[in-house]
Every structure is written in C-alpha cells, then in structure tokens.
C-alpha cells in the first residue's frame, strides 16, 4: 500500500504559503544559578574590584617605600661606588651641595618610576607620604621666642612657639610644635620661611617689626638626669640665631639657618 501523501490545501492562497516547519521544541528556560549568599558579587564584578584593590594597595605601598629608600641621610651620589664627592679644594661635599658640581643624587630606578606612576593618585588620596616616626633617630626640638615691637621699638607682645602655657589644648600646642619643626628641619621644603611666620605674627598683633630667636632644645643623657639635671634646664637651650623682620620685608630664604652651628657641635652636659 502506497503511503498517502497528506492532501495539499486547495486554493491559490494556500499554495503561496510556505510549508510550515514543525514547531521547534521550546527550550526549557535556563535555570538561573542561585547566587551564593556567601559570595553575592558576580565573578566579573569581583575581578574588576580585585584589579582596583591591587592598584590601590600598590599606590599605598609605593610612596612610603620610595621615601624610605631616598632620605637625605642615605643619599647616594651618581658616581662609581666608594668614590667621594669633593669640591675643587678637595673637601667632601654634603649631599645638598652635590648638584653644585654636577653630581646628582641617585634614585632607585624601579621604585622612582613606580612612585611617579602613582603620584597623582597618591596625592589625591593623601597617601603620598611616609610613616617615619622618630626615625632614623629621635631628635632635638626647636623653639622660637618672638617679640613683636611697635614703631618705636617697644615690645607689644611676646611669646614662644611652641608653649604649653599659651597653646591649649594639647593638639593646638602640637600644631605649633610641628610648625616650628617643619620650618627648621634642614631637609624640609619649608626650611627658611621664618619671614612668613614673622609676617603672620605682625598681622596678628599689629606691630611694626618682630624679633625672633631660634633655639635648639637639646636632650639630656640618662646620666645627666640621674645627676639631677632637669630637661628644661636653661643650659639645655642653645641659641642659634636671632633675626628681625620688619613689616613687608621680602622673605629671605634660610634667614635664621645661616647662624646654625656646624653639625656635630655639642654643648657641655647635653647630647645633640
């Protein structure tokens, strides 16, 4: 028996119609994987955030690493190892004068490159700093005594930076202490801005000039303390420079620093 063909539907319109394909079996709906409650973020999001985390942590790590490797006390001249850096008279030059004879301070190439790469990001987030507290060694403090004078040279105000009696609470005192330290540290870019501090004191008290005296407050050895010497004994203060600033004077770089004694200078009973 011959197989019967299904009858074609009669009529022209039916002939024009394409033959209907058997309907595709509908795919079962893809089951959504239930999100792991222990790991709610998708792998893609975690990957992206992981990259951001790595970038950020590198930016946190690099600036203190760079600063740790490049402090002034560890400065290495760009000359063959062991070769001294001397001036024309044959005297050894300190690092801050190497450039005078065309010798640069060496920077670690990889870390310096990384620091440059992260520079703006680190600046924006204030992670562009080191964490070198009391290092390489705890050091002496500086104090500035000031006297504001009127047009006739008569004192109208006087004080000390920092001074616990005037500056309270403790954080306010500490800010003044940092102000003095950061204007007196040789490596610090603010070194020598005594004139601007003086100008502000003049604006504050309304004087015509201000006389400022910088002193180093040296630290006592344990033996001196055992011997009964007080840490605020007058002999522990070493006056290193006095200068007078008149209203409107052009700032002079390193005005007071000029009179600081050479490194290593000691005063009796005190360890610098």
């Amino acid at each position, binding site marked *: 028996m011959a197989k019967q063909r299904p009858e074609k539907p009669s009529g022209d319109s039916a002939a024009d119609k394409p033959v209907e394909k058997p309907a595709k079996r509908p795919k079962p709906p893809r089951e959504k994987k239930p999100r792991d409650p222990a790991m709610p973020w998708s792998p893609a999001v975690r990957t992206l955030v992981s990259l951001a985390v790595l970038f950020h942590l590198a930016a946190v790590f690099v600036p203190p690493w760079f600063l740790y490797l490049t402090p002034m006390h560890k400065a290495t001249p760009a000359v063959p190892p062991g070769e001294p850096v001397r001036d024309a008279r044959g005297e050894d030059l300190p690092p801050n004068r190497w450039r005078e004879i065309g010798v640069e301070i060496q920077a670690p190439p990889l870390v310096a490159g990384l620091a440059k790469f992260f520079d703006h990001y680190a600046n924006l987030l*204030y992670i562009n700093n080191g964490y070198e507290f009391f290092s390489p060694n705890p050091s002496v403090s500086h104090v500035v005594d000031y006297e504001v004078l009127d047009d006739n040279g008569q004192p109208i105000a006087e004080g000390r930076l920092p001074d616990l009696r005037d500056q309270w609470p403790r954080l306010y005192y500490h800010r003044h202490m940092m102000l003095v330290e950061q*204007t007196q540290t040789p490596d610090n870019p603010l070194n020598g801005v005594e004139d601007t501090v003086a100008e502000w004191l003049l*604006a504050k008290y309304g004087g015509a000039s201000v006389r400022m005296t910088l002193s180093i407050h040296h630290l006592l050895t344990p033996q001196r303390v055992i011997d009964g010497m007080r840490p605020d004994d007058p002999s522990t203060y070493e006056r290193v420079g006095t200068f007078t600033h008149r209203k409107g004077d052009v700032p002079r770089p390193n005005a007071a620093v000029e009179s600081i004694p050479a490194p290593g200078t000691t005063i009796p009973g005190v360890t610098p």
Partner: protein
Amino acid sequence: MSSLLAAIRGYLVDVWGAWNQFWFTPADPATLSLLRLLAGSMLFYTHFIWSLDLSGFIGPDGYVPVYVLRPPGNDIAWSAWSVFFWIKSTWLLWTVHIFALLVFASLALGFFSRIAALLAFPLAVSYAHRVTPGAFFGLDKANCMLAMYLLLGPCGARYSLDRLWRLRRGEATDPEPSVSANLAIRLLQVHLCIFYLFSGLPKLDGSSWQLGTALWWAAANNEYRSLSLLWMAEWPKLTALLTHATVFWEIFYCCLVWNRYTKPIVLAIAFAVHGGIALFMGMITFGTAMIIANLSFFKPETVRKLVDPIAARVSLALVGKKVS
C-alpha cells in the same frame, strides 16, 4: 606535564578562592559602624581645634601662606590639592570650615552617614594638604586613612542616628551582612600593615634604635613629654627592651596580626604603644586615632558583644526600642 598543569591550575583556583573569601565575603557592618562613630568624632575634634587659629594655619596668609606652598609658576602636582588653596576671604574660609565641622559631626553621629562619609574624606584631605608641609603630623595621615575607607561601606548601618531613624519609621530589620563593609575593613587592615612596616623599616637605619636607646631620647624630649618617663634613666635595659620590641613589633605587625594566636598579642602591643604615646608623649589624638584604626581587626561579633548593650540603651532612651 598535564599533572603539573593540573597542580598549577588547582593552586590558582585555591588562591582565587582564598582571595575571594578574604575580600568579598559579606560581613556584619558592626566594626565599620564603630569605626565611623570613633573616627568621625576624632575628625570633628581634630578639625575643631583649627578654629582656635583658623586664619593662622589654614588661611591664605597664615604662618605658611598659600603662595609658599603653591608659588606661581611652580611644578607642584595639581593633584596635591586643597579647597583652601583657592579661598581668599575670611568669611568663605569660616563658611567652609563650619560646613566641614558639620560634616564631621554628621559622620560621628551617623546622620546621613553615607553622604557625610563621601564629603568627610575630601574635606579631611583638604585640611591635610593645606598644612603639608606646615603643621601636619601622623594624626592627619591616620585621619585621612580612616575617612578614606569609611566612605566605601555602609558605615551608618549600626550605632547611628540613621539606624534610629529607620527604627522610628518601623524598619526594625537587622542590617544585612555587606561585602562593601568587609572590603572597607580589609583595605584598612592592609593599609595599616603597610603603615607599620614603613614605620619600622626606617628605624633600622637609626643608631639609637639599633642600640636600644631611642625610647629614652623620645622620652627625654621636653617638648613632647606630657607625663614623665625620666625614671627610665635608671633602667637602660628596660629601655632597650622596649625600643627593640617596638621595632620588631612594627616590622612584623603585617605578618603576625593575621594569625589567630599572635593577633591578640600584636593588638595588645598596639594598644600599649599608642596608649603610651597618648599618655606620655602628649599625642593623645594621634595615639587614639591609631587605636581606632587597630579596632578594624576586631571581629563584628566581638564589636557587637561590646557595643550593642550601650547602643541598646541609647536607642531605648531615644526611640523606645532596644536595638543596636
């Protein structure tokens, strides 16, 4: 060869798994919320103190004028920015300052916490850049570090006015564990490890840290001292022990703080060191800020056990319900 590849693949899968578990596991926002409360209070107090001589320290013509930090034609990076570099008038200076204080107070109280956290960080950085160099110190670094990570997570989920407000409206559900809370805390923890590592390493270059006398010289500094440590003059070996312990603790903090057996010891030393700095060296704010940062290593369960009873009393008093 294929077994080697399989081993490498297995290793990488394990690493990825551990990495995910470390960074992306949801955590109760209790620790982050406690940090918000404490760090926000510290930010408020720190910046309130500028009010005592705002023009002198932050104003355009103060002790260190803006033109000294940003001289015309300088090559200083634009990114070392501060809103105070552009402020010329005293009234605007005070307006911004009062706004900043309100933001820090909001952050501390947990009032519109997420917005406050978003604003607090750039404001804190603005102050810090204005006084760097000038009058900055470790406190500013610690404050900015704390503020930076608070903005990443739901820092007002607990111990906040936001939470009390939600309760008042009848939303009494407990805050959900959050990935971003964990992420924020983890970033702060790792940042803290880097902080201590680079605080410890430079000390190895110092003769006094090598000899074990550094703590004496720090204690003998009259300008720092708040409580006397001069008795240490008669205890050189104790001084040396504390000096060496400080260096070892700082350098190895980044390793030992992750181990469950050494973590309590490392954190106890952190509280002792920073507590000592606060009490004896007059840096109460810096010592406290660092202790707050170390609290990031407290598990949320521990924080809840310690803080929830206090928070419950506060909420009972304010909204008549006992919740944390």
